[in-house]
Structure formats: structure tokens, C-alpha cells
């Protein structure tokens, strides 16, 4: 049988694709044997503790270090006074560089934001370092900070048509809006949020001569390696990053943060390993976060529901020096058929750390706004919200007319609606009750661009028939280990137990950042390419003159159960065929280049990947088409008639995301996304004291995420989808798909339960009293 790449599920008969298998690293994780970077045993380690700024804007006038130095066991204290000029600047990640922020703490006395690192205390024990850190005295010159948005809604600015490249637009949205018989115009907002991965931000640095080894949880080990090397002015090949397990990243561990270089320098000064585990509170300011956003949406429609005008203006907060924005208008502008579209994104600079990626950075806030507005429009039209989506569904980008490679949004809606029981919904708000509880049902669209990146992988077949997959990719809890093992098992026809996978080490072949939901699509294709090369060599050996399948058509030879098989029943083990190719293991190193890569990426992609630079072909503009994964999410909320407590006991999501390599881990990803979506809609917000531009609920007791009692039925349905335009294996990433539509689905359900439209997240009971 030849490899057919046009079906969902296994490629070969009895193959592994689409088979639900347990996470291959699951046992290690649940038994505690998985070695997370800060768990690595090490002799003679000194411990670092960060001192962070009490003020958001100003200068350090003086340090008083005597008391801190006097603490028993203190070895060294780093401040700007001894670190100035020691760390070179590197470019901003979002601008094509390495750093999560261009703010360089401890390069001068300047304070850019509250919680900025201002000193690092190193001591014999964690306890001594912590005690001394509290004794570091600081005199500040304080300036009044700007915390973010003002209290009033931002003023819209005229949207100029036709479009600039960065603000997608078409037609004349303003004119069409003015003429529309049915209109919606409203502001929406989303709050500051933090990743709060269970694993904290840790860094352990060990020098051996001029060789630096860094144990740090990372979503991009090649980026970290190259970035730190530049900061320290040493050759990248002198730096090794080890990060085999990451206890949650969500974007917070994607780009280089300031801490790493300081720990490396501390280890150098002391000539011994130094380990930092930043505290939970510090986690709110030493890496990035999801900044708060505001949106003004205007929708105009015919009375039959057809959109005639869509405009979306977004406002985002960034730090003083960095122009970070997520600009989800790129997606909201192409979501529905509409002849007149205008968009604009504004950035407001404040005395804050630089925001950055957090699970579906662009889609989460922007889709919340547009999908809430779509629900409002459905209400205004007296139309079922699913039907409104159907009427405005599109198979092409309404601005460029480029087709979607595939788009099964309405199949997702119909599948999820059926599973949810949507047909029995009474659309009148407040009409469905259960005792003291008002029941609300709401739905929304989810989508995420199918990004694909250049990636490398090495696959080795050992003489004993075992297979080793190596790539500097990352399993941040997503299931990458499992998906890659499945891919190798599928292509080489070996049992899954015979495949081992190595990830998260910068000495392995370079792989892209675990971000933008590209990893499975990119690295599985690289592994598949390497396996195909091995197959080719093995088949060549089998059909060679001294092989058992001599004279057979090589295309007829298949791989299963660790054997090469011919149609006539002949077979040979991989080991035997491999032995004929020579002694020892045989290996293949593949460099995968996305099919959708632009000419430029094809030219420089591999080199950039090797340098650890961000490089990815975006699903939002994949040459002659655009490519997205879609989903539809349905939520039931219950609002207590009197106390207005809000619960979300039931959620159903149906998703079309191309070929599902590993259904067990894919389901976990989507389920986690749905739960996070409920969390973002009802619970999560980093609260800010605007007087001081300082967070107030920066710990897990006060930063609310749902507990088990908050989450009951979560149903994930895969809608089969066959799309090999996106990449050879037909994989659409889904790590960031699940939590995109949930915010709006919950808000829409709350409206249905109560008749109250809450446009500012999170929705809390006092909004409904």
C-alpha cells in the first residue's frame, strides 16, 4: 500500500495516527520521575533570590546593602551598580529578536515598572538569600506612574479607507453602517491576565570552563541559547539549554527574560552553580502577561441577518519602550462574509512590564468582542445565533477573496449544537430556570490560524529495532512527546513502545518555538520526512539483489509490526534490512520547510531557525489561501436568582482541526482550553492599583482560577477534516483553539440567563446584582 495523505486517521493500515494512546511521558509525570529543570540534582549549588522594585516609575537613588550582606551565608549581591554594561541588549522577540522585553533591568538605576528586578541576592541557602533580600534597603526617586487605560472608554479614531497593510479593511464600513437597518455598537474589554503555570520561573546556571549549561523551563531552547549567548557576548555553541519538561508555559516561557543572564553572571562570579526559583508573586513581573484590551465594535446588517458593515477598533496596553500588540483584527476581519470592513489597533504605553504571548494572544480578546457583538446582533434580529453565523459564513477571506484551505465552522456548530441540545433552547432571556437558578445557554465561534514553521528532526533506527526521535522541540504539557512518537511509529510501522523521543535540549536539531500552535504540525512533518528517508533506505535494502524482496515493486512494500512486508506475504524485520545497510544504527536528519512558506522563509528559514530567531509561516496569509482551525462552543451557565452567583456546569466544543495525530492529548488540550475559557470569562483578572501601577492579587489565593467544583461536564468533539493544503500531514494546530470562543460563549449565556449584557470581563456576581 502506498502512503495516502488524503485521509483522516491512520495513513497506513493498522497505523498509529488517530489512535488514542496514553501520554508516553505520563508515568514519569505522575510518579514524580520527570525531571523539570529546577529539579536537576547538582552539587554545591548557591541559591538566588530576586529583589524587585516597589515603585513603577522613577529611579533608584541608593542601595543599603549592609544588613543584607551581614546575613549568614550571603555570597554576592548583584545590582545595577555592578551589573551595568555586563549584559548586552538583544532585540525584542516580537520584532524578530530574542527578548521578551527590551527593558534591561539592572543596566541602570531606571525603573520601568513595579516588580522589575533590581537586585539578585545569592547565598548558601534559599532561606538565607530570601532573608537577605528582604534586608536590601532601597531609596527611590518616585515619579507618578501611568498604570494603563484611564477610567473612561477610549475615543475612537476615524478609520481611513482603503486599508493600510496592518489594519485589514475593505469597502466603506462607515457609510454601510450608517445605512444599515440593524446595528450594534458597543465597547467590550478584557482584563490583565497572567499565565500562572504551576511550574515557576526558574533558572540554574552551571559553568564548566567557558561552557555554560542552563537548566530553565523554555518554550524555545534555541532562542534562549542564542539570546543568552548574545547577551553575554559568547559564542552560541558555548551555551546549552536543558529543558526536557516544562510545567506549563502558555507563552510565558517563550522568549528570553532578563533573569537568565544575571544567574549566568552570578554563577560565573562565584564559580559554582547558581539556582533561582522566582516566587509566585515575582512571576507576575519577571516574564510577560496578557495585557488588558478595549474594543469598539460596530456591526451593521440587513434585516435578513447579512452583515453589511463590520468595524473593530482595538486598544491594547504595552510597556513604555515596546510596541507589543496582538492585533486580533487580522482574524476578526476575515471571520464572516461582509463587504465593508474597517479595523484599527491602538497601543497605549504605560509604566508596565512588556506584555507578550498568552495562550491565543490575539484571538482571545478580539474574538470575545466580535462574538459578543454577533450575539447582540442575533438578539436584535430576533434570530438564532447559530443561524446568524450560517448566514454570514464564508469560505473565502472577505478582504482578499483568498479561499480558506478548509473551513468546517458550520459543521462544528451543527455537531456541537446537537450534542448540547440547543434545539430545546427558549431564546427569551430568563425563561429557563431550575429552582432558584436561572439557566442560560450561549454559543460562540472559535478559530485559530494554522501556523507552520521550519523544523528539524533526527530519527535513528538502532540495530535492535528501536527508534529514537530527536528534536529540540518542547512538550509544555501539550503532548508533543506522544504525538511525535506516534508519527514515527506510524511511518516506520513499529510498536509505540519501541519509539523514544528526546526534546527540550538545544544540542538537538533545531525546532521552532512552542507557540502559535505550530509545534505538532511542524515537527511531526519533520519526523515524517526523516522516517520517509529511512523507509526509502530500508526498502532499497529489501529489494536489493541480496534482499528477500529482490525484484518487487518498491511501492508495494509496506511497514507494520516492525517488518517490511510485500504483498505476496514475504516479510523482513527492520533490523535485518538495516543490517544489510551496514553496521550500527541508521539515521536520517530531516529539515522540514512548510509547504506554505513564503519565498523569503524558504530562503532564510533554516538559517534563522538555527540562530533561534522566531520564524513561522502564518496561517493568516499562506500564499494563495488562508488556513485556520475552527470550532463552535456551547456553554450552559446558571445564575442564582438572588445572590447572582454564576456557575458554568456544562460546556460542549466541536472542533475541526485537520488530522488528529494523538486524540488523547489533543482532547486534553481542547478540554484545558475550554476550562481556561470559563476561567477567563468568570474568574481571572490581575487587579491593578492604578495609583501605583502595581498588581494587588498576585498570588494563587487571590488570582482566581476554577477549582474542580467549578467544572463539571466538558465535552470535546472532533469534526473530521481532511486538508493537506495546510501541510503534508494535514495537521492543524489546536493547542490554542479551545479557549478562544469560550469568553463570548459564557457572556452570551449570561445574557440569556439574565437579560444582562456584560461586556467587560471577568463577569462577576456584582455585575448582575
Amino acid at each position, binding site marked *: 500500500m502506498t502512503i495516502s495523505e488524503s485521509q483522516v486517521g491512520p495513513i497506513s493500515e493498522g497505523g498509529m495516527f488517530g489512535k488514542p494512546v496514553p501520554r508516553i511521558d505520563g508515568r514519569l509525570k505522575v510518579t514524580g520521575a520527570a525531571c523539570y529543570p529546577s529539579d536537576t540534582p547538582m552539587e554545591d549549588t548557591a541559591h538566588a533570590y530576586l529583589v524587585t522594585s516597589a515603585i513603577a516609575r522613577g529611579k533608584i537613588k541608593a542601595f543599603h546593602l549592609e544588613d543584607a550582606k551581614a546575613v549568614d551565608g550571603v555570597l554576592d549581591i548583584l545590582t545595577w551598580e555592578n551589573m551595568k554594561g555586563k549584559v548586552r541588549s538583544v532585540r525584542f522577540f516580537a520584532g524578530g529578536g530574542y527578548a521578551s522585553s527590551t527593558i534591561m533591568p539592572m543596566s541602570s538605576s531606571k525603573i520601568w515598572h513595579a516588580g522589575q528586578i533590581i537586585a539578585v541576592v545569592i547565598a548558601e541557602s534559599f532561606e538565607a538569600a*530570601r*532573608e537577605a533580600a528582604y534586608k536590601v534597603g532601597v531609596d527611590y526617586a518616585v515619579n507618578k506612574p501611568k498604570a494603563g487605560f484611564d477610567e473612561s472608554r477610549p475615543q475612537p479614531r476615524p478609520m481611513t479607507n482603503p486599508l493600510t497593510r496592518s489594519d485589514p479593511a475593505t469597502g466603506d464600513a462607515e457609510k454601510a453602517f450608517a445605512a444599515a437597518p440593524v446595528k450594534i455598537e458597543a465597547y467590550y474589554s478584557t482584563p490583565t491576565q497572567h499565565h500562572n503555570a504551576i511550574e515557576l520561573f526558574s533558572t540554574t546556571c552551571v559553568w564548566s570552563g567557558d561552557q555554560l549549561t542552563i537548566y530553565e523551563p523554555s518554550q524555545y531552547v534555541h532562542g534562549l541559547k542564542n539570546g543568552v549567548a548574545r547577551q553575554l557576548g559568547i559564542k552560541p555553541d558555548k551555551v546549552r539549554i536543558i529543558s526536557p519538561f516544562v510545567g506549563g508555559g502558555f507563552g510565558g516561557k517563550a522568549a528570553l527574560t532578563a533573569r537568565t543572564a544575571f544567574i549566568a553572571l552570578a554563577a560565573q562570579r562565584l564559580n559554582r552553580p547558581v539556582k533561582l526559583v522566582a516566587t509566585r508573586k515575582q512571576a507576575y513581573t519577571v516574564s510577560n502577561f496578557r495585557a488588558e484590551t478595549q474594543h469598539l465594535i460596530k456591526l451593521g446588517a440587513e434585516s435578513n441577518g447579512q452583515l453589511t458593515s463590520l468595524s473593530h477598533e482595538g486598544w491594547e496596553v504595552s510597556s513604555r519602550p515596546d510596541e507589543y500588540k496582538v492585533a486580533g483584527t487580522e482574524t476578526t476581519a476575515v471571520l464572516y462574509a461582509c463587504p465593508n470592513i474597517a479595523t484599527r489597533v491602538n497601543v497605549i504605553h504605560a509604566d508596565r512590564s512588556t506584555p507578550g504571548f498568552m495562550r491565543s494572544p490575539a484571538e482571545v480578546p478580539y474574538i470575545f468582542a466580535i462574538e459578543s457583538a454577533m450575539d447582540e446582533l442575533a438578539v436584535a434580529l430576533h434570530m438564532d445565533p447559530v443561524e446568524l453565523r450560517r448566514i454570514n459564513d464564508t469560505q473565502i477571506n472577505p478582504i482578499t477573496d483568498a479561499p480558506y484551505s478548509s473551513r468546517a465552522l458550520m459543521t462544528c456548530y451543527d455537531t456541537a449544537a446537537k450534542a448540547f441540545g440547543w434545539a430545546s433552547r427558549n431564546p427569551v432571556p430568563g425563561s429557563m430556570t431550575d429552582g*432558584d437558578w436561572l439557566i442560560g445557554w450561549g454559543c460562540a465561534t472559535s478559530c485559530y490560524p494554522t501556523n507552520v514553521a521550519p523544523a528539524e528532526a533526527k530519527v535513528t533506527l538502532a540495530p535492535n529495532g528501536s527508534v529514537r526521535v530527536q528534536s529540540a522541540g518542547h512538550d509544555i504539557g501539550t503532548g508533543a512527546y506522544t504525538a511525535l512518537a506516534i508519527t514515527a511509529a506510524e511511518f516506520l510501522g513499529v510498536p509505540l513502545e519501541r519509539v523514544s523521543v528526546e526534546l527540550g535540549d538545544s544540542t538537538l536539531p533545531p525546532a521552532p518555538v512552542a507557540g502559535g500552535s505550530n509545534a505538532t504540525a511542524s515537527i511531526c512533518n519533520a519526523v515524517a520526512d526523516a522516517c520517509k528517508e529511512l523507509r526509502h533506505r530500508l526498502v532499497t535494502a529489501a529489494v536489493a539483489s541480496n534482499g528477500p524482496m529482490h525484484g518487487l515493486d518498491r511501492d508495494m512494500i509496506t511497514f507494520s509490526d516492525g517488518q517490511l512486508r510485500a504483498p505476496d506475504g514475504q516479510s523482513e524485520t527492520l533490523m535485518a534490512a538495516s543490517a544489510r545497510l551496514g553496521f550500527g544504527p541508521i539515521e536520517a536528519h530531516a529539515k522540514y520547510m512548510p509547504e506554505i512558506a513564503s519565498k523569503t522563509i524558504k530562503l532564510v528559514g533554516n538559517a534563522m531557525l538555527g540562530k533561534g530567531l522566531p520564524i513561522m509561516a502564518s496561517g493568516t496569509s499562506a500564499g494563495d489561501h488562508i488556513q485556520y482551525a475552527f470550532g463552535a462552543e456551547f456553554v450552559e451557565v446558571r445564575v442564582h436568582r438572588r*445572590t447572582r452567583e454564576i*456557575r458554568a456546569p456544562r460546556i460542549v466544543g466541536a472542533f475541526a482541526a485537520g488530522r488528529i495525530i494523538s486524540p488523547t492529548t489533543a482532547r486534553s488540550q481542547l478540554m484545558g482550553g475550554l476550562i481556561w475559557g470559563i476561567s477567563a470569562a468568570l474568574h481571572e483578572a490581575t487587579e491593578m*492599583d492604578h495609583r501605583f501601577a502595581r498588581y494587588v*492579587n498576585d498570588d494563587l*489565593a487571590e488570582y*482566581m482560577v476554577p*477549582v474542580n467544583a467549578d467544572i463539571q461536564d466538558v465535552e470535546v468533539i472532533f469534526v473530521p477534516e481532511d486538508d493537506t493544503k495546510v501541510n503534508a500531514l494535514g495537521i492543524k494546530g489546536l493547542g490554542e483553539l479551545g479557549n478562544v470562543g469560550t469568553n463570548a460563549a459564557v457572556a452570551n449565556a449570561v445574557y440569556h440567563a439574565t437579560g444582562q449584557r456584560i461586556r467587560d470581563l471577568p463577569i462577576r456576581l456584582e455585575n448582575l446584582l
Partner: protein
Amino acid sequence: MKAFTYERAVSPAAAAQAAAHLPGSKFIAGGTNLLDLMKLQIETPTHLIDVNGLALDRIEATPEGGLRIGALVRNTDLAADARVRRDYGLLSRALLSGASGQLRNKATTAGNLLQRARCPYFYDTDQLCNKRHPGSGCAALGGFSRQHAVVGVSDSCIASHPSDMAVAMRALDAIVETVLPDGSTRSIPIAELHRLPGDTPHIETTLGAGELIVAVTLPKPIGGKHIYRKVRDRASYAFALVSVAVIVQADGSGRVAVGGVAPKPWRVEAAEARLPEGAKAVTDELLAGAAPTRENAYKLTLVERTLRAVLAEAGSQP
């Protein structure tokens, strides 16, 4: 965390005496509150006196027909005690609504009563707080105050008392029994244990230096329907935005105490007298003189609504 010395007390009186003699010393029971605060250098005791070995972990019937709960009885054990569940259901429910199973296994009766404020500014040593540094100022005033108290507050402090158990005990008229450094004992009605902040919010109770809680006594059961309703941001494992404890008798009379709204478990006997008039009348009396902030004004409505839900559940009012 600052270095400290540690001892295991041999008797309640010895513990009280040691504490009075060594300024900067603290009792440690379950440690679930004290240790967290020590790690953050909010509490910086120089000496810890461990009271876990003092055999104060029993629940005994009193001659008056009540229960005497040892200061070291764990929250889990207290909530599960058959007598508590039968006669003081309010207490059991309040306990089970607090913290998590793991924490309740460690948390003790005395420690729970004396747990400190959950005000985020109290927890941030880079902010001003009169509880941490008397006279320095209160950053919560004019700041993020969604969870803070609305009644009984002062210009010096608006922190609420976080305990659920204490709210039930207040409704049950519990008596706190202590041993003083000189070996004498004292009985303090729970209404008098916690102080309002006034201009000394750092002085949270009426306990004297070294005074050790040895037990909490519940008077004879009073029957009635016991309901504890805790309203919070998620279904479990969160402090109350508002909690309402009621004991309603068949004739419609009863007791009401509320949590999450004041610096101490809040009960106003005059408000209870208005129970027949309904939730609004009770709430008006209960929260008379409230001084909410813009962010926590919703608590006034929430108390009334929760009380209304609770009275409906008790079947005494629609």
C-alpha cells in the same frame, strides 16, 4: 523568613508564661496562617511556642449541656463530630465551607479564630499598611477594595475578618476560654474577642500578652434550622465575599451573623429582632452605619439578597 527559635510547650500555663516572657514570641498551632505570613516577612516572630502537644484536642460535653472544644481540635475533626453535626449544624457547615480539605486537616480552632486579614496590601510588604506598621497608612483605602469590609471599619483599616468558623461561633454565642501567663483563666464571649480597628488596627483581639486560648465552649443547643450560606467567586476554596449564618426557629425568630463584611464576625442583636419584617429590615439594621468603598458597595445588596435566599431556604419567608 527570619531565623527563629522554637520550643514545645509542656503545659498551657507554661506556654502562656513563656510567651509573656519572650517578647517577639508567638504560638504556633496548625501553622497554616502563621507560616505563610512568616515566609513573606509579614510576621517576624523571633521565637515559636508549639502548642500542639498540650492535649487540647478534645471535644467534651459540658455539665450545662453544651460542648467544650479544645483549642487544638482540627477543623476537619470539629466539622465531622457527630454532636456538632447534630446540635450545631451551622458550625459544621461553616467549617466545611472554609479553605480546603488539606488545610482543614491542619487548621485548629484557636488558629482559625485568630487568622489574620487577607487584605492584599497587608500581604504586600512594599505597600503601606497600618496592621503591619502602625501609623504608616492604609493602602487599601482608595485602592483595590472589592473584598474589604463595609461595616465596623475605620479610616485606619478596612480589612474584613476572613474566618467562616468564627461567624458560626458568633451566632452560637461561643465562649473563648484562655489561660494567662500567671496561670489564671478567663472566659471571653466571642463577641468580645475581636476588636474593631479604630486607630489601632494592629491590635486585633482583646487577648493579653501571652494569653493562650485553651478551648471554645458552646452553650446548650438551641435547636432551630441552621444554615450557613457562603457566597464567593468560585464554587469552593475561596474566602467569602459575603457569608450569612442563620438559626431560624419555628416561630420565625432567630439569629443572624454575617461574614466578609466586617473586621470581626458581625452580629447585631437588634437586627435579629426585625427578622419577621424580612431580609431588608434585618440588613438595614445589621449594616447601619456602613461605610463601603465604590468597589465593595455591592456587598450591601449582596447581604440582603443572600439573607433573603437563606430565609427562603429555611422556609420562614418566601
